[in-house]
């Protein structure tokens, strides 16, 4: 037994080294640039693919061929990172952190298709490392020598990084920048060069991590997202910006995982995310992280004026609603299905907007509540034998309760830390649905969630969805302009002032979080009956990104934005998928361009245009001018 424990610790340490290489790169980049690089898993994957090609090119049998290939792969990935920084990230350092996260997610999509086009969809099994093909007997078990090498590489890189940061000028500057960005500018350091070099360096570490994986496991197109979600856990647990914390957390997660397989083989994923949640509750900024000094966001981020719809907008809204009501008379069946989906997504997007726009709480895991609503409906059908009507009523409560619980933790943080915590909670929800097979059917999902017979006809279900969603969206909109919505905006605009006029900021945000979760749950419940089935993918990361894109496409600072965004995004992505197999690349590129060119979204951009014209026409310093005056 003791032998087994020791061996499993070694296994955990070997995995920890790979995790650490990627996580340290991510952490260093965050420390200096304050960007959470979603594409770090993609750089890791690129490292593995490039190493596969290079090692086979150089000859895997010779040590020089193998290690030369690995090192060159890491260097090439560093170059890719350099290009990424210069072409995209450099332009968005001032943008809100959510935009940065999204832009890097766009890059994830692009790299996925680039890898698919370059290496094909088949898994690639790389060669073993010369000199490390065998094993040693440790604690009575065979242990691969390559894994031993990895165990050594982790701390070796940690030591190297320490040396670099303590003993070189570049390292000193990086450390200084991590503590206080403004100070570095004052020191006369070339900030551009610093950011670019840091990003390339971090990318190179990820590439090295990927390349070193080659003898361990087959290279696949799924490495990017599965790695990044684990690495996020590591950096968040370790503390964003802390390299030593990253190592500590990597060891913790790696060993935990290895023992999870031994003791709770069926809930390994849940276990990891649960540990993360516990750490964050005790230490919100991670084991070795520090509370960010001052505002996480720059002082420039004043929110523009929000005004209720004017007559023209109201009329336009009414016209759209009437069009939607009349739609079944003219549209064919399959378009009606698309419309039903769009209507449901509009509510989903509006619910996210409620907490993100007026609430100022950017969630990277809103799909959790959509999915929990869907599962609420499906579980009611499966386990309680409930018909559609009560199941639909039950659905949002499951989501709402989750929102109540998760929200309590989340509102204690802000900015990117809050986004990461929402992501963690969404991953817990996803992992639970994925691994609690007895209750949720795991990857098989729950089938047979069909509507009551009266609602089966497509037109009837469409009207049901339209009625529920339109009512909820209007209710959310109403709330934004009601005292609760004002208090929420007050809490976002200036928490200090809000507290000083008697507003309990956290409680208001907590309520908003729960309301948003509840509303997303309504959308999820409808979606479950619309599709007839639920699956863990309903709460996976891509669905959360969908919601974010809808909101951002429409514009965060407008109330009608998310609805426009939902229609634009869902319509667009469906057409894209039909048009080209490389839809991920096109979508990713669109996201990047959107973030770089239209940081205020479609409706925001339209309003700005209108204001510009309006202002030029009248010249009056009316209240609307305020919108223009801000960013």
């Amino acid at each position, binding site marked *: 037994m003791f032998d087994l424990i020791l061996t499993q610790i070694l296994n955990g340490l070997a995995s920890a080294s790979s995790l650490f290489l990627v996580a340290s790169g991510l952490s260093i980049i965050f420390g200096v640039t304050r960007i959470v690089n979603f594409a770090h898993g993609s750089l890791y994957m690129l490292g593995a693919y490039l190493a596969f090609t290079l090692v086979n090119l150089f000859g895997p049998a010779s040590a020089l061929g193998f290690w030369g290939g690995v090192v060159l792969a890491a260097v090439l990935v560093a170059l890719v990172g350099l290009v990424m920084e210069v072409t995209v990230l450099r332009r968005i350092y001032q943008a809100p952190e959510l935009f940065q996260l999204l832009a890097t997610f766009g890059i994830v999509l692009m790299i996925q298709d680039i890898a698919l086009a370059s290496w094909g969809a088949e898994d690639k099994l790389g060669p073993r490392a010369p000199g490390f093909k065998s094993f040693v007997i440790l604690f009575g*078990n065979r242990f691969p020598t390559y894994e031993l090498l990895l165990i050594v590489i982790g701390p070796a890189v940690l030591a190297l990084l320490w040396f670099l940061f303590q003993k070189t000028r570049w390292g000193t500057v990086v450390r200084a920048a991590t503590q206080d960005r403004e100070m570095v500018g004052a020191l006369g350091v070339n900030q551009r060069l610093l950011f670019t070099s840091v990003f390339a360096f971090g990318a190179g570490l990820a590439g090295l991590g990927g390349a070193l994986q080659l003898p361990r496991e087959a290279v696949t197109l799924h490495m990017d997202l599965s790695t990044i979600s684990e690495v996020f856990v590591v950096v968040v647990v370790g503390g964003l910006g802390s390299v030593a914390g990253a190592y500590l957390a990597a060891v913790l997660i790696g060993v935990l995982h290895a023992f999870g*397989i031994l003791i709770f083989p069926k809930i390994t994923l849940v276990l990891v995310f649960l540990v993360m949640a516990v750490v964050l509750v005790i230490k919100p900024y991670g084991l070795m992280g520090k509370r960010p000094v001052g505002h996480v966001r720059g002082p420039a981020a004043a929110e523009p004026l929000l005004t209720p719809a004017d007559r023209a907008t109201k009329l336009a809204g009414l016209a759209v609603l009437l069009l939607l009501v009349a739609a079944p008379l003219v549209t*064919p069946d399959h378009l009606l299905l698309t419309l039903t989906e769009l209507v449901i997504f509009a509510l989903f997007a509006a619910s996210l907007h409620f907490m993100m726009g007026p609430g100022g709480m950017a969630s990277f895991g809103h799909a959790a509540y959509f999915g929990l609503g869907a599962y609420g409906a499906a579980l009611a059908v499966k386990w309680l034998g409930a018909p559609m009507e009560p199941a639909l009523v039950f659905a949002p409560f499951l989501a709402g309760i989750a929102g109540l619980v998760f929200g309590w933790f989340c509102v204690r943080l802000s900015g990117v830390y809050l986004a990461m915590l929402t992501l963690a909670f969404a991953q817990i929800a996803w992992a639970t649905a994925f691994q609690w097979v007895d209750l949720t059917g795991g990857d098989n999902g729950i089938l047979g969630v069909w509507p009551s017979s009266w609602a089966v006809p497509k037109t009837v279900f469409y009207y049901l969805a339209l009625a529920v969603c339109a009512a909820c969206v209007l209710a959310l909109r109403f709330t934004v302009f009601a005292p609760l919505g004002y208090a929420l905006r007050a809490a976002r605009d200036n928490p200090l002032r809000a507290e000083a006029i008697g507003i309990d900021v956290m409680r208001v945000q907590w309520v908003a979080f729960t309301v948003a979760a509840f509303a997303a749950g309504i959308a999820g419940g409808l979606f479950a009956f619309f599709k007839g089935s639920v699956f863990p993918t309903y709460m996976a990361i891509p669905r959360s990104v969908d919601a974010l894109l809808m909101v951002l496409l429409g514009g965060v600072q407008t109330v009608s934005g998310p609805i426009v965004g939902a229609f634009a995004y869902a319509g667009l992505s469906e057409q894209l998928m039909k048009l080209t197999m490389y839809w991920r690349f096109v979508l990713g590129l669109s996201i990047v361009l959107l973030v770089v060119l239209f940081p205020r979204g479609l409706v925001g951009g339209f309003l700005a245009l209108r204001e510009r014209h309006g202002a030029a026409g009248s010249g009056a310093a009316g209240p609307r001018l305020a919108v223009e005056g801000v960013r």
Partner: protein
Amino acid sequence: MKMDRRSFLATASAGVVAVTAPSLVRAQGSGPIKIGEINSYTAQPAFLKPYRQGWELAQERANAAGGALGRKFETLFRDDAGKPEDAVRHAGDLINAEKVDLLSGGFLSNVGLAIGDFALQNKRLYIASEPLTDALVWAKGNPYTFRLRCSTYMQAAMLVEEAAKLPAKKWAVVAPNYEYGQSAVKWFKELLKKAKPDVEFVAEQFPALGRIDAGATVQALEASKPDAIFNVTFGGDLTNFVRQGNTRGLFEGRAVVSMLTGEPEYLDPLGAEAPVGWIVTGYPYAEIKTPKHVAFREAYKAQYKEEPKLGSIVGYETVQAIVAAVAKAGSTDTDKLTAAFKGLSFTGLFGPIVFRASDHQSTMGAYVGKTALKDGKGTMVDWRYADGANYLPSDDVVKTLRPAG
């Protein structure tokens, strides 16, 4: 028709490929017979690229022979990326927007079940080609779903026949944690205990599909010191599992019984690291000398410049079955096609195939044998063809397993 990998994928994902010339068909007075084919083309390319090639070969041949009912066949390929959610979305689109006559495909068992449920709700015919779970035809069987490949139950029965001969008492299992893995393990355990009541199962590992942590998993299995191992992992998980297992000596002195591992899709990527002496189900393509298979292999090689894989067979046979059923029904009406599939029989590449009326399962079999290394590549030796008909329960038993009737 020759395709490189990239254009293959391009057309696979883009969806619509009209193999026939629509204008020509319309001139005959009616459009083509449309098949909506949903599969995990990008997620499981090892199996599904050959699958699609086999499919297109069969369709070309059928159309060259005049199609059926004076109409040609046309297939609309859709990629579900391994996600049931996407499969259901495509199914809705194919039925409602593209107005296909029937649905087919499905690789992963959970995807198959999801399409099957959709078919039931929408009262449309679904021919499941590959998803192996027995639930598809039994526990969750429905009047509109038929399945070609031999199920987890059948393959477990074939493997148990061999496993029961082993002296091993203590067994460990490793399987992907979704419908296919769960179902395969369930039947293997049940059937082996029936055949040898003194066996015990000492360890179970259910890594998530495509996410195995091979080193720790191998160690956990090793720790239970089993006499033998039953493996259900495939694809990338299998590759990683075998590599770590080899290095750590998990397979030494132990019998391994492994589902699907003899299929070239999964054996080839292992190269010289392919395991030796595992009892597997699979497809020894180079050694099957029946005239029908030899002819198929030649034609396939001539067309695609590569050896057929099991996917090629499954794709080919699915089209054969659909063509035969349309001819038998004399119509593309769902009810008539469904009726035609019950008891449908035709001669397949491995032998005769019958879609049983009682549970909609075909009797297509599999090859059972042992893995070996030949010229630095994995292959199968000591193999035999296990006809599916011999590994299925009787109609009376099926009645108790299949609530749908």
